[in-house]
Every structure is written in C-alpha cells, then in structure tokens.
C-alpha cells in the first residue's frame, strides 16, 4: 500500500531539496469531498486493524486458559466498551461501503463522474443502519446505567 497517511495531509510532506524550502506550516489543503472520504477510509481501516489485533489475541486466550478468557470477556462488559463497539460497527460499515464506492470508481466507467452522488448514497445507508443499530446496541447499557428496570 502507499506510504501516505492522513497525518501527512496538513504538513508539506516534501523532503527538503537543495536550495528550496519544504514550505511546511501552511494552511490545510481544502481538498475535494473525495479527499476527506479517503482520509476517513484510512482512519477507519487503521481502527479496524487494531480491533482485529485485540480480537485475535483475546480469542486465542481461550486455547491458553478458558478461565483467563472468561475474565477478559467479563472485563469488556462495561459502558465504555459498549460505546467502543458502536464505534467499531460504524467504522467497519463506513469502510465496507466506501470500499464498494472506491471499487466502482475503479472499475465502472461512469464511477468517477458520479463519485459524489455515490458518497451521499453510502452516507444515507450508513445513517439508516447506524441510527437504529446504535439504539439497540446501547439500549441495555443505558437502561442499566440509569436504572430503567
């Protein structure tokens, strides 16, 4: 994959050449909508990677000691982790939907022309899934936190 990361956006990434300034510290480039979808795609990709890393580690624990595995899973049953789970679903969903958009831009000849429209479609699907999704995922935590028994 490319060596570009989102953190390089604001700073002029050019290495200083002889007799020139690298021109760092300027304003943030006010790029196209496509640039911001790409930044978000990178961020959600990295977030998903870290989730998978932790997920592989905690699941592997069951082979080491089922007791330790149970303890670890018990650790996850708190409101903060519940919120992180909602964030994870949001990140994976965005990454998947935008991935389809990027593939269409790559392989469909009309893709580049309708890339903005495709973004608004995936944004709509994301909201349509995430609003009820977040509600059902958080309902139990909220009712326990605020004593709605």
């Amino acid at each position: 994959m490319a060596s570009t990361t989102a953190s390089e956006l604001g700073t002029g990434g050019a290495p200083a050449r002889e007799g020139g300034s690298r021109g760092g510290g300027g304003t943030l480039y006010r790029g196209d909508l496509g640039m911001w979808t790409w930044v978000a795609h990178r961020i959600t990709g990295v977030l998903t990677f870290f989730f998978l890393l932790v997920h592989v580690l905690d699941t592997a624990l069951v082979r080491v000691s089922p007791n330790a595995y149970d303890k670890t899973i018990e650790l996850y049953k708190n409101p903060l982790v519940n919120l992180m789970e909602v964030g994870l679903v949001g990140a994976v969903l965005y990454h998947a939907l935008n991935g389809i958009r990027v593939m269409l831009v790559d392989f469909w000849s009309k893709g580049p022309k309708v890339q903005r429209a495709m973004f608004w479609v995936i944004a709509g699907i994301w909201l349509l899934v995430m609003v009820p999704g977040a509600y059902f995922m958080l309902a139990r935590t909220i009712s326990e936190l605020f004593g709605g028994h």
Partner: protein
Amino acid sequence: MTATVEKAPTAGSRGSQPPVPEGATTITVKIRRFNPETDTEPCWESFDVPALPTDRVLNLLHYVKWYLDGTLTFRRSCAHGICGSDAMRINGVNRLACKVLVKDLLAGAGKHTTITVEPIKGLPVHKDLLVDMEPFFEAYRAVKPFLITSGNEPTRERIQSAADRERFDDTTKCILCAACTTSCPVFWSEQRYFGPAAIVNAHRFIFDSRDEGAEERLDILNDVDGVWRCRTTFNCTDACPRGIQVTKAIQEVKRALLFRRV
C-alpha cells in the same frame, strides 16, 4: 543650479500608488513568503489592497508587487488562463491567480475579506510563490508526450475519425500548470509518483489512434509509482483550471492496463 535627486523606487516597484477606483473595498492579502537568502522557514505577510469585485487575484498580487513590496516573487505570463504559469494555492485550494475573481472570495456583507495565497505544495519553494517545476517536468518527459510511429512517413496527413479523436479530447486541454499534481496528497508525501499531469499527458497519446507507443507508455506507468499510486481523492479534478476530468483519465489508464485494451 540645484537638482533634487528623487528617491529611486525599490526593485520591481512602480513607485507612488494609483488612485483607488470607485467601488473598491480594502481586502487583506495574506501571502506565504520565503526568502532563501534571509529566512530558514516560510512565514506569513499581510498586505491591505484596494480591490474591485471584478478584479482577479493576480491583480491584487500585481498591486502588492508594484506599489507595496517590489520583492514579492511569483510567476505569471499571459494572465488569461492559457500559459499556466500562475498556479498557486488560493484560500487553501490550487487555482490559477488569473482565473479567480475577487467577488467569488468576498466574505459576507460587512465582514472583512482575507485572501490567503501560498505556493503550490510538494515542489521545493525557491522564493515566495515561485517553486522549482523541474521534478514536475521530469515526470512529464518520462511518459514520452510526443507522437510515436513506425514505418515510413505518410505522404498525406494521418487521418482520424471524429469518434477516435473524441476519446482523448479532454486530455488535450492540459496547460502543464501543475495545479493537479500539487493538489495530490499522494504526491505531497511521495515525489517519485508520476502525478496526475504526467498521466493525463500519457492518456492523450495512449488513446490516440494515430500513435503506436501506447504499450511503451503503459509499461512506464505500470509501476508502484505509476498509475497504481492514485488513491482517487479527486483533488486533481477539482483543481484543474481547464476542467479536465483528471481522475477519470487516470482510471481509464488503469483499466487499459488491467484489461489490455486501448
């Protein structure tokens, strides 16, 4: 006999300021400046300039250079959007200074307008808004942007149908201003990437039915630093002052490589 020696205006300056035209408002032009002889880092400098809504950003830069500070350095030649020498970052996006009108940058009613002007990003800055274009032209030359044919020269012109001409019509419009290449986040961090402009000019010949060098150019661009570096951020399409669908052209080259169909 006494002769008064008038104070000579500083280099590049035209001396006293012209009358302010009716209907002009004062605008702050905030310029990212760098003098290699005195500065180690670029810094911002602001100038108050009287401007009409019909002025172009280039007029404001001329006002600064001619009447306020003759040391301001920038490129411009035709000033009509044809030569492609005054690409710069205006209010955060790459534009030609001669094509952006002040009325499109004015802040809302009653608010003071500030316009920021910076050199294009990713190329070494020589002075103020003047950058070293050599890495950009190096990539351009590398894609062999000229007609490649084999066999004897025809005695008449090379005939092409209107439909064949249409295939690369969009990419013939390039004026090599570098607005697209220096708007690309991939290019900012990896200068070995050919960049949108070089690919656009390769596209112009790859899809030309009279040209026989398509395979050669596709091989050059079939590289980690070739078309595959493109992450379809569409900044180049947005930046192009000629309205070329740059990302679309890059994608067409990618598909030509994938399916070997030119």
